[in-house]
């Protein structure tokens, strides 16, 4: 017997390189970049006010062959629950499952704890459990591809979301516009709101996470185009103390920093505090839709923006799975809109009652158990 995948995994594509901010990441793919930037302005199709059911420029696929009478057993192989974003997302997903209880008999969740090889084993494991549909949120794109392919071969509908896989075998791939959009929006804002030729500090979490890499590569393009002086690209490990120290040292080294770009919002508050504690004005900065940042932004009247990687995307795979099991057409890929929080709509999202690490863009206010479940 063998669990061998149908086709060999394909290598990650490579793109153009070379710019003032260092070599372009090998994750950069020009075509994807162009497509994502175009999507930023596209009008979504689908029910109004429910972005998790909307799709951008959808191409529908037929799913009749998966039609099956309910109630269903839906299985989910999760990359991990090791950060607040995934926690909020997963709670949202569970709430969605609860909302659909009449149709979902059983929801099996296995947490890979951020380990590629465990997730591969998990997927294999789930294939033996008689699932009607399999949802996968891959830990790493390239490395999970073979496992997802072997799942497809079993003939059950596979839905991938968040990070993708290098194969088209899943019925659909759900995710928001993506990293290029995020990085681009933030970089445009930072470079557009600071003094021309000013100094930007780019704070990144970790090297080598594809979602974050695409964000940075898009920002790089934007900064190079705007002729911004990126004085440093530093990794913070998501550690606020480290972030503050880095910002402090850069302030000392350069006197002032005129803009801060971040590839994720986790340490945005720490970065802002570093400026405040040093008695310096907070320069244009981007964060994410985490409430501690939104609150600080509101209180301190920052020049800020929060592109999002919305956690409501955790609802969509469940919805997609049920549609597929109904034999309904679904968009593939399922591109979700990716709203940005700006000064204009800040008040709408900065809910003071939610915990500081909650993500405002959870699309969860209509789900059962809100808000206690997320507290």
């Amino acid at each position, binding site marked *: 017997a063998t669990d061998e995948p149908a086709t060999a995994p394909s290598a990650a594509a490579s793109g153009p390189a070379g710019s003032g901010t260092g070599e372009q990441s090998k994750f950069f793919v020009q075509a994807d970049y162009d497509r994502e930037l175009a999507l930023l302005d596209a009008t979504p199709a689908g029910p109004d006010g429910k972005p998790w059911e909307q799709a951008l420029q959808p191409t529908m696929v037929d799913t009749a062959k998966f039609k099956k009478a309910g109630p269903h057993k839906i299985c989910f192989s999760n990359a991990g629950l090791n950060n607040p974003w995934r926690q909020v997302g997963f709670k949202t997903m569970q709430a969605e499952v609860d909302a659909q209880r009449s149709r979902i008999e059983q929801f099996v969740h296995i947490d890979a704890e951020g*380990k590629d*090889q465990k997730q*591969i084993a998990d997927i294999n494991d789930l294939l033996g459990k008689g699932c009607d549909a399999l949802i996968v949120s891959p830990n790493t794109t*390239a490395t999970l591809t073979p496992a997802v392919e072997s799942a497809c071969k079993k003939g059950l509908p596979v839905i991938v979301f968040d990070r993708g896989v290098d194969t088209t075998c899943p019925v659909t791939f759900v995710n928001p516009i993506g990293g290029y959009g995020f990085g681009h929006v933030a970089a445009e804002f930072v470079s557009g709101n600071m003094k021309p030729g000013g100094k930007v500090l780019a704070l990144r979490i970790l*090297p080598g996470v594809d979602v974050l890499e695409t964000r940075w590569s898009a920002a790089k393009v934007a900064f190079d185009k705007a002729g911004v002086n990126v004085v440093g690209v530093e990794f913070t490990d998501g550690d606020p103390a480290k972030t503050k120290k880095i910002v402090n040292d850069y302030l000392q080294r350069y006197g002032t920093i005129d803009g801060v770009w971040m590839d994720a919002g986790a340490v945005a508050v720490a970065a802002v505090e570093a400026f405040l504690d040093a008695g310096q004005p907070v320069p244009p900065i981007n964060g994410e839709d985490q409430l501690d940042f939104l609150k600080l932004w509101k209180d301190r009247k920052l020049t800020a923006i929060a592109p999002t990687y919305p956690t409501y995307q955790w609802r969509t795979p469940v919805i997609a799975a049920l549609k597929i099991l109904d034999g309904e057409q679904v968009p593939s890929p399922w591109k979700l809109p990716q709203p940005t929080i700006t000064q204009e709509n800040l008040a709408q999202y900065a809910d003071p009652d939610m915990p500081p690490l909650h993500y405002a863009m959870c699309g969860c206010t209509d789900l059962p158990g809100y808000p206690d479940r997320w507290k």
Partner: protein
Amino acid sequence: MSSALSMPARRASPGVFVALVLTLAIGWLVVAIDGGQLFSVPTTVSLLHVAAGLGLVAVGQTLVVIGGSLDLSVAYVISLSTLVAAETMGGDDAALLPGIGLALAVSAGIGLCNGLLVTKVKINPFIATVGVGLLLKGYLDNGYDGPAGRTAPALVQTLGYQRIGPVPLSFLLLLGVAGAAWFALARTRFGHHLIAVGGDPEVARLSGVRNSRVLVTAHVLCSLCAGLAGIYLASRLGSGAPRVGTEGLYDLESIAAVVLGGTALAGGIGGVAGTVGGVLLLAGIDAIFNQLEVDAFFKQVIRGVIIIAAVAVYAQRVRGRAAP
């Protein structure tokens, strides 16, 4: 005097196997009550795959720990090895052997470096291997921003996914490596000398053992095992992954498995069989908790408790044996 004393030295079987059987039996029961099947083929396959990865590292770690040393750089060696293998292969079956060879050679080189730092420069193994780990981390962080290279399809199809019944090839590889390590410890001079060096370096030296050489060899073998684990992971993942070793916590988990298996951190006592038992125990706990969909964090708490408790039990037994 405990009954363990009356057994011949060689067969002082570590309690880990008792723990393993109990855990699996209770786990099977609880999972069955929960409506699942612990020993279904896919679950067994998954369990054995998890065990194979950790096991390869832990077997190597056993060697250095028996020698009274320690290797905390294995996680990075694993990551590096996946990359060297996958990049050399570049998805081409023709480059399969060079890929494996190069990955093992690089790993062995790191092991040599660890060994020399510990024996010749006389840096405490903890600091020496953490330091080497940091060097490698910098190289990986700087050189790679994500998976790279492509494992030869032939390797993916065999080592990565081939199995015989419910037993993956990789687990057979682990058994092979563990067997070889057991054989090395029991039947080669190197093994006898390693146990002696770990037990009492001065006695070993006076008996004509070349301590440094033995310990360096152990470090090289440990790194080779980590390299092998890397090759296995590359075949599983289809490409090189610069963070797979650290994500898997292979450094600390391998030491935990070694200690669970009854090998003393101080060196000189222990064996590979116990380590394999320790690995299976950890993988078994994983599988059971997976079946029960137990929270990963709760699982971690349980792991911590089990590790401490198991070692405490060994410690009491040893104390019972030793003089007051």
